[in-house]
């Protein structure tokens, strides 16, 4: 019942082209070959997702038929100057910054302040020197191929940041991973692959950003593995500000050790089509995950977040707060799946999804799910969909604030709860500005009430 051979073909075609070029350009690094093989095998066995598959029920993949995505195999963008990406920089740039251009490390743009002992930074393609054994072993350790694109990433992974913190190391200040995509003549596809490993008791802050330079069309297919040891702590801030014609798919897979703390803030603001899969697995007791996210969809933007939180062990806590803002003919899809395994007693999970619809032609499809196999648990989820409170609008307008601005203020306030969970002040400010500017530029519809 899956798609016919012709539609299946495009994913296979991406794989074939990618492998062809990779063979020419990249020397096969032995330690990656197992991952690539597993990915190739996965692509061969997995069909392209379609609406019949529950996890892709609301996710349209029509764009795959419209463009032939060419593999981007090398980064011919060493020519890119720091000044070119000035607009993309945070006001208070982190002292450690890894910049990837079209999926490949651009060493000229990176900032590498001396970090504490026990912090290892490396890049998948070897741009920062030989990849240490401990990172090699961890690659692909927790990645699951939940869909064909994850397998595609494993088969064709281009480059990415590999971060390792030894036990007990506390990192001062954030590490920034900045992706810059430049549209090519032919829409390209790249497969960034990141790995973040925190050993027991380590603490770090990571900022991960995906930006577009110009408004080219391209497809980012990222996979991020995060492994947290016991008592470790990671503040993970992700911002998707891709170009308005880009497709962005990222699959974040997190494994939590005992008593670890994982805090994720996701701001998905850009792209024509965006899907973020987040899978968090509790592997040790007493761990906590706090996941917050904001999805913006305006003017035919499609913005999709799929959460899969797996409470496999007792005494873990998770909090999920995701908000959607819809304008124009934007569409938001939210799927929040929480599973509490048998015997994962004393689980405490609260999920909330709230959506603000500003326009007639927008659409929200939301599906919070609880799957519970243990009895001594506290789980709940709540969802709302609605428009701006007319009383609030009236209040602001009665104080002389124009309708557009009032609307924007209220949206800003709605989003602030999510942005406030970002540890980085500079990132918070940027998220706020981006949201404001995007809300302003969206065309008000005729006949709006």
């Amino acid at each position, binding site marked *: 019942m899956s798609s016919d051979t012709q539609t299946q073909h495009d994913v296979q075609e991406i794989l074939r082209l990618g492998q062809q070029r990779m063979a020419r350009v990249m020397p096969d690094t032995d330690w990656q070959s197992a991952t690539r093989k597993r990915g190739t095998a996965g692509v061969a066995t997995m069909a392209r997702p379609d609406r019949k598959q529950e996890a892709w029920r609301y996710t349209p993949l029509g764009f795959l038929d419209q463009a032939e995505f060419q593999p981007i195999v090398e980064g011919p963008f060493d020519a890119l100057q720091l000044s070119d990406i000035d607009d993309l920089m945070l006001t208070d740039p982190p002292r450690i910054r890894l910049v990837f251009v079209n999926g490949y490390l651009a060493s000229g743009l990176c900032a590498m302040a001396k970090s504490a002992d026990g912090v290892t930074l490396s890049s998948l393609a070897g741009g920062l020197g030989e990849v240490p054994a401990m990172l090699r072993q961890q690659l692909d350790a927790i990645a699951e191929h939940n869909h064909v694109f994850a397998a595609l990433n494993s088969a064709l992974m281009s480059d990415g940041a590999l971060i390792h913190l030894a036990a007990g190391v506390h990192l001062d200040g954030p590490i920034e991973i900045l992706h810059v995509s430049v549209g090519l003549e032919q829409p390209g596809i790249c497969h960034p692959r990141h790995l973040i490993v925190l050993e027991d008791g380590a603490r770090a802050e990571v900022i991960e950003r995906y930006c577009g330079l110009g408004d080219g069309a391209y497809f980012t297919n990222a996979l991020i593995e995060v492994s947290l040891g016991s008592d470790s702590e990671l503040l993970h801030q992700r911002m998707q500000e891709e170009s308005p014609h880009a497709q962005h798919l990222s699959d974040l897979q997190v494994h939590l050790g005992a008593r670890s703390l994982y805090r994720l803030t996701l701001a998905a603001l850009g792209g024509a089509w965006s899907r973020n899969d987040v899978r968090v697995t509790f592997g040790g007791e007493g761990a906590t995950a706090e996941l917050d996210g904001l999805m913006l969809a305006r003017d035919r933007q499609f913005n999709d977040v799929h959460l899969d939180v797996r409470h496999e062990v007792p005494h873990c806590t998770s909090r999920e707060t995701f908000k959607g803002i819809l304008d124009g003919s934007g569409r938001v899809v939210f799927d929040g799946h929480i599973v509490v395994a*048998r015997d994962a007693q004393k689980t405490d999970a609260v999920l909330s999804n709230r959506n603000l619809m500003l326009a007639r032609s927008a659409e929200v499809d939301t599906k919070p*799910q609880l799957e*519970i196999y243990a*009895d001594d648990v506290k789980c709940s989820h*709540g969802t*709302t*969909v609605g428009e701006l409170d007319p009383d609030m609008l009236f209040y602001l307008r009665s104080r002389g604030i124009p309708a557009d601005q009032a609307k924007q203020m209220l949206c800003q306030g709605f989003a602030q709860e999510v942005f406030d969970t970002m540890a980085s002040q500079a990132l918070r400010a940027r998220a706020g500005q981006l949201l404001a500017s995007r809300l302003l530029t969206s065309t008000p519809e005729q006949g709006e009430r």
Partner: protein
Amino acid sequence: MSSTSKQVDALVERGYEHGFVTDIETDVIPPGLDEDVIRFISQRKQEPEWVLEYRLKAFRHWLGMTPPVWSSVHYPQIDFQAISYFAAPTKKPVLESLDQVDPELLRTYEKLGIPLEEQKALSGVAVDAVFDSVSVATTFRKNLADAGVIFCSISEAAREHPELLREYLGSVVPHTDNFYAALNAAVFTDGTFVYIPRGVRCPMELSTYFRINAQNTGQFERTLIVAEEGSHVSYLEGCTAPQRDENQLHAAVVELVAMQDAQIKYSTVQNWYPGDAQGKGGIYNFVTKRGDCRGARSKISWTQVETGSAITWKYPSCLLRGDDSVGEFYSVAVTKGHQQADTGTKMIHLGRNTRSTIVSKGISAGDGQQAYRGLVRMAQRAENARNHTQCDSLLIGDRCAAHTFPYIEVKNPTAKVEHEATTSKIGDDQLFYCRSRGLSEEDAVSLIVNGFCKEIFNELPMEFAVEAQKLLAISLEGAVG
């Protein structure tokens, strides 16, 4: 309802059984399903030609379908050729007195508070001839006829009200709707037709107790209720007493049509055989229920208490087409032992200012598996539509499971949708409080659970609500401690 009228109800049902069983005993056909079987059914039911055509069309469509597999219920594959599609229910031997009845069953009746005469009726004991059930039934029938209400079996409707049946049969649940609805459309043998004329308020609660062809649990039951403009009807289905049935698969279809300003209230209490301790042999209850609010300001309300069956798989739904129409769904589902339930509702908001309320309470004990699965869809035209959904699950025991899968699709910004769900076990502090006041553990659990379900019981017709509360307490006996 007073106990006398309960006795009457039981007797009405009982009395009918007598006349009916002998009548159809000769009609048993061997297992298997093909067009000849369908022709046979149609012929025995003396149906008009178009009904046969309808059945055949459904059957041909069904042949091209595969059983759905998306639910979270698990059961061995059903062999549809191993089912006899027109078998008279096995005639129960008439017993001399209650002494011959399974004492376990009697204890259950006792706890439910079922009056003695009714107990006899339910367990198949001969009853005093003083209660002339036939005349009682006739009285009811006369009352209904005076009001202009048509209340008869679906086969009778096919013969006597063909024009009405033809207009509405399959108009809410088409034969193409799903696998089991198609099967039902092909082979339905039993069921009820209710027609409430314009402006009429049905003078009594219609219940399958009263039904004129009281063969209670048809395997492929088909119910059709049409409420014309401004009319009002309340329909009760099922029974709190344990129902045993030889047929394992039940694939019923219920269609409700509410015209402008009409109101239909449909209440179900289901307590079919859940199977033995290992979950073997229980009923599979796969039902398609849908109501169509066709006119402005119409209202359809579903209330269900599901405690029986090995598998309950149904989603009573409302299609809110008329402006200002209202849909409601109130549900209590209990799963224990190895019972499974996948139930919920669909509220499809098409008209302006449509409103829907969903309150679902799931109680899972032992190895019970339970899922709420629901859809709320706000179409683009559904201006100012409103939905509130609340799904709560109560877990008793560490082997049970409770899931919530709500789907929410909104295409209109003025629509407001709220969904909330919680899952928890009975609070130790609540239990402790009750125990410290001298309640036994079982009574305490019963008290807490009944409080948990109160919102739903309030929606049931009074006499059902009382029985449902007791039923719940019995269902959960031994689940704690």
